[in-house]
């Protein structure tokens, strides 16, 4: 191998390594959208699975949806951003319980709604950066008679983009809950919030 070939080879390897490094940076545009779309596709796969038809398969479907939602959402970030300043009023144990109760309320409330979907088309349109580590992934659910804009706000943690807020027709999920919790916390301790949540979860 001539000296010239050696230099070219080294240069090429250098370029390849550089390219690999650049493209492995998770902030690469498109990754947040692809991540959310990936989860959403998996949800649609579950809903359309011909092996899971009828009432009996409903529980299996719900379990599958729960597995996906745990990967898709960052429930601890979502909880913290819901309570904002009030978060610090909760002890670590209370925070833990809050996350778990809040998660099951959200999952219960939306599982049935999502299970009712099947023939909807979901279009992922664009990404809008919100801050250094947060991005809004915009999508539209197209039904026969209407179109509903649904925006997912995602945050980058440990190289993964996970959802911490969902904005439907301009209504932010976490802001909506924040207003409700604030109303309770205005004159009651964190325990009152947990008690309300426990009752709600208990009722199923």
């Amino acid at each position, binding site marked *: 191998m001539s000296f010239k070939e050696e230099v070219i080879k080294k240069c090429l390897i250098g370029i390849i390594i550089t390219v690999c490094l650049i493209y492995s940076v998770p902030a690469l545009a498109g990754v947040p959208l692809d991540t959310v779309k990936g989860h959403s596709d998996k949800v649609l796969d579950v809903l359309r699975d011909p092996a899971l038809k009828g009432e009996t398969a409903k529980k299996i479907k719900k379990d599958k949806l729960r597995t996906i939602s745990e990967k898709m959402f960052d429930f601890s970030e979502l909880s913290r951003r819901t309570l904002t300043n009030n978060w610090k009023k909760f002890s670590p144990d209370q925070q833990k319980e809050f996350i778990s109760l809040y998660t099951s309320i959200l999952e219960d*409330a939306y599982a049935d*709604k999502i299970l009712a979907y099947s023939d909807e088309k979901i279009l992922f349109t664009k990404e*809008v950066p919100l801050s250094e580590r947060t991005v809004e992934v915009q999508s539209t659910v197209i039904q026969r*008679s209407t179109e509903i804009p649904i925006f997912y706000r995602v945050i980058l*943690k440990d190289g993964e983009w996970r959802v911490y807020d969902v904005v439907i027709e301009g209504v932010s999920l976490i802001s909506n809950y924040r*207003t409700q919790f604030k109303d309770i916390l205005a004159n009651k301790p964190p325990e009152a919030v947990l008690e*309300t949540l426990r009752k709600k979860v208990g009722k199923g």
Partner: protein
Amino acid sequence: MKLIPHFILALVLVFLPVLLSAEEPPPASEDYSAETSVSESADEYESEPEAESPQIADPLIPVNKAMFTVNDKLYFWVLKPVAQGYAHVPEDFRIVFGNIYDNLWAPSRMLNNLLQLRLKGAGNELLRFVLNSVVGIGGCGDVARDAFNIKKQEADFGQTLGHYGIEHGMYLVLPVFGPSSLRDGVGLVGDQLMYPLTYVGSSHLTTTQKVEIATHEKVNDTSFRVGDYESFKKSAIDPYIAMRDAFVQHRKKKVDESKQ
């Protein structure tokens, strides 16, 4: 040679949205630099401060809460069972009815788009009204959307008032209509004044018939949404506050959109 002017008119109609869309300013470049100046240490994950929900005054809260309960009962005892029974009408027919009602609201959307200086939206609504009324036979089909990809541009008078800086005033829960405000209540009246059936004389349509038409519109619309209110209630910690907050957030987005 009477055909030629018609042909030109058709051409203009078809290309109008294209011409109008060309005037639209390019979408704002996605600005990465806006919030990136504050660098956070990657391992702390301290939350950024969250934007507060927009607020609304609610001095009539006892009355509003009572009306909220009335509407809740009205839904579960009357509207929902009626809509569920009505849902036996095949979906295709219900969509046609929905299209007809929607087309009747096109003049109101057009005027409000115009008042908000959204010329493309106004032009699209005008075109949609003409195409859907003529080719879509009285609005039965959404030809404008399906054949020409001219999409509906929502606009209402409450939004128009908001566009010109008028605030909500106070929160109001209206019978049947649900969450509203002083401003948006006036908006509802304004929209009614832009609604063609308002001007149909009583020799053609009696007031009772107009109420029946409005009722059918409501039931037809609800037949597509049974379950939405239930899952909203299931998810809410305090349905009254959740509804009020969702209303304010949703309307703020509408007004913000009208200024773009």
